[in-house]
């Protein structure tokens, strides 16, 4: 009789469904997974070590590049940690702006997840729709920060600047006629807040579209129902957070349980799954998008009515305004010191965790009183989720591994750091 051996297969790092640079060594018995061994680190840039040699503000743009589909949320955790160490209070308007952009970022992340997850298991259409909406969200990023992805908009002490009064518009070019430009600029006539409000009105209809494509789709359900089931106790032991934990039926959301910024003033529901499979996690994320949209709407209403400062006026932490810097010697010194030596953070240690779109994103800063962190540890949610891939995929088929990777919402920027 022929000798029967398990077959070892390499999945990635250049597989399109590997979501970046995941190398997965699969041990197969026929088509059934016996063991999955993820090899990570192909995108390791040692962000934590780099941060040790840079001032606090210089490291901030690195945070965008961690989880590069939810940029502002990464910055948020980093800024929160510094603010807690410094003991400074962020102006209320900045808190609302942060809450609003956190939720817009959640939409940005979930739309990419939805598009790529459905693309992985065979649906092209959702991907195209999701990217259409992401375009509008990128425009919002661009309007406040000038950058479409890597915003560096949140700063310790607030946000870099206030929301623009005028939404940037498309210009006529050799590629676009007057009529096309006018159509593109239809909802960009007012301020950024008008544009966002218009988006929040349109968005529920878009989510309905995605649901029409997927929720009752026979192929989608065949690929996701009963795949990668995680029991609630197991999800907690494996360190799952965010939609992965809620999909298993644990009602845990840091925005509710340990509220930061102005989440305690917001009205929203926390969706929870029942079976803990890929389909339930899909439903949880879809509902989260609707809830995020609600939060954004509430923030827009408040921000319209309440002008005010958006960054602390402590010039040891935040730069002075440009005008006073040009006319006032002391402010000039502050500006110079802040951007050369940087701010000094008192000795101590702090852990700040936020409800990132993927789960709990934590920043642990250990400071010895210098102008640079002594040790910065970034706790990425998808790192923990990926470490459970072996357990989740055992006994499933090869094709299900793709669905499980998709449901984990993996981004290598934050796993490899």
């Amino acid at each position, binding site marked *: 009789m022929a000798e029967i051996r398990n077959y070892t297969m390499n999945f990635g790092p250049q597989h399109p469904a590997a979501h970046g640079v995941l190398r997965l060594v699969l041990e197969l018995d026929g088509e059934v997974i016996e063991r999955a061994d993820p090899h*990570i*680190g192909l995108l*390791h840039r*040692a962000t*934590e*070590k*780099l941060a040790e*040699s*840079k*001032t606090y503000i*210089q490291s901030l743009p690195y945070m965008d590049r961690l989880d590069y589909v939810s940029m502002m949320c990464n910055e948020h955790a980093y800024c929160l940690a510094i603010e*807690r*160490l*410094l*003991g*400074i209070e962020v102006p209320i308007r900045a808190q609302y702006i942060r809450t609003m952009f956190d939720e817009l970022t959640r939409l940005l992340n979930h739309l990419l997840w939805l598009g790529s997850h459905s693309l992985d298991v065979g649906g092209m259409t959702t991907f195209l729709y999701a990217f259409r909406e992401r375009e509008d969200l990128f425009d919002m990023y661009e309007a406040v920060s000038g950058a479409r992805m890597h915003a560096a908009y949140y700063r310790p002490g607030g946000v870099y600047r206030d929301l623009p009064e005028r939404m940037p518009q498309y210009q006529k070019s050799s590629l676009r006629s007057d009529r096309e430009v006018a159509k593109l600029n239809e909802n960009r006539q007012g301020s950024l807040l008008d544009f966002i409000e218009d988006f929040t009105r349109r968005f529920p209809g878009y989510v309905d579209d995605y649901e029409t494509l997927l929720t009752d789709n026979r192929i989608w359900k065949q690929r996701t129902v009963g795949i990668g089931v995680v029991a609630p106790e197991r999800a*907690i*032991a*494996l*360190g799952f*957070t965010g939609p992965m934990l809620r999909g298993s039926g*644990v009602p*845990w959301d840091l925005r509710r*349980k*340990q509220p930061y910024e102005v989440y305690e003033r917001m009205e929203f529901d926390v969706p929870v799954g029942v079976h803990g499979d890929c389909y339930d996690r899909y439903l949880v994320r879809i509902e989260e998008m609707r809830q995020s949209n609600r939060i954004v709407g509430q923030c827009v209403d408040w921000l319209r009515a309440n002008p005010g400062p958006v960054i602390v006026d*402590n010039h*040891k932490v935040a730069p002075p305004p440009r005008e006073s810097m040009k006319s006032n010697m002391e402010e000039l010194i502050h500006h110079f010191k802040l951007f*050369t*030596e*940087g*701010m*000094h*953070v*008192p*000795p*101590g*240690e*702090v*852990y700040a*965790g936020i409800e990132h779109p993927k789960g*709990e994103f*934590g920043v*642990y800063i*250990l400071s*010895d*009183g*210098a*102008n*640079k962190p*002594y*040790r910065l*540890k970034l*706790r990425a949610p998808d*790192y*923990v989720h990926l*470490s*459970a891939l072996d*357990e989740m995929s055992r006994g499933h088929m090869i094709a299900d591994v793709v669905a499980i990777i998709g449901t984990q919402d993996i981004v290598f920027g934050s796993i*490899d*750091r």
Partner: protein
Amino acid sequence: MTDRVESLEAAAREALGERARSIDVALGECTIVVAAADLPAAMRTLRDAPPLRFGMLVDACGVDYATWANRAWEGRRFAVVYHLLSLANNQRVRVRTFAEDDDFPVVPSLVDLWPAINWFEREAFDLFGIVFDGHPDLRRLLTDYGFVGHPFRKDFPLSGHVEMRYDPEQGRVVYQPVTIEPREIVPRVVREDKYADTE
């Protein structure tokens, strides 16, 4: 919030007793220092004792104290810092343990308590060279295949020791000693107390 941290501190003090070397509360967070030998027992208490019930391990990381405050560090060099979360009581706690031997740091593994710690321990081993006794699969995780050294130690240069390039003569990728000089644009400064007082 502060009452809750203090009640946590009291509960931890009672449950851990002698095993806790120190329990501090700072910035609204509770930090417990435990000797490496007592770690598994103390962590089991933190996980299971009814007033504590830290069911989730959020984070674990290595720390190298060699250049703390730009001075020579007295005391043990390597530490492992664990962050725990209690879903039942909605509380967090930080546990720190120092490895006894600086040349060969060893800390007991906690994989039996929280499976989530598996990769965190592999990462700390990879980046700091801290050995976790009892870990079932202590391989490198983030660095390259065949990497030498532990890059997050303070004596490891930021630019590393080797660089990789394509050699057209040999027709393959080769490693060679780094050709760039490490440079630090902003020096690391530790000011005297109250220099940057934010009040």
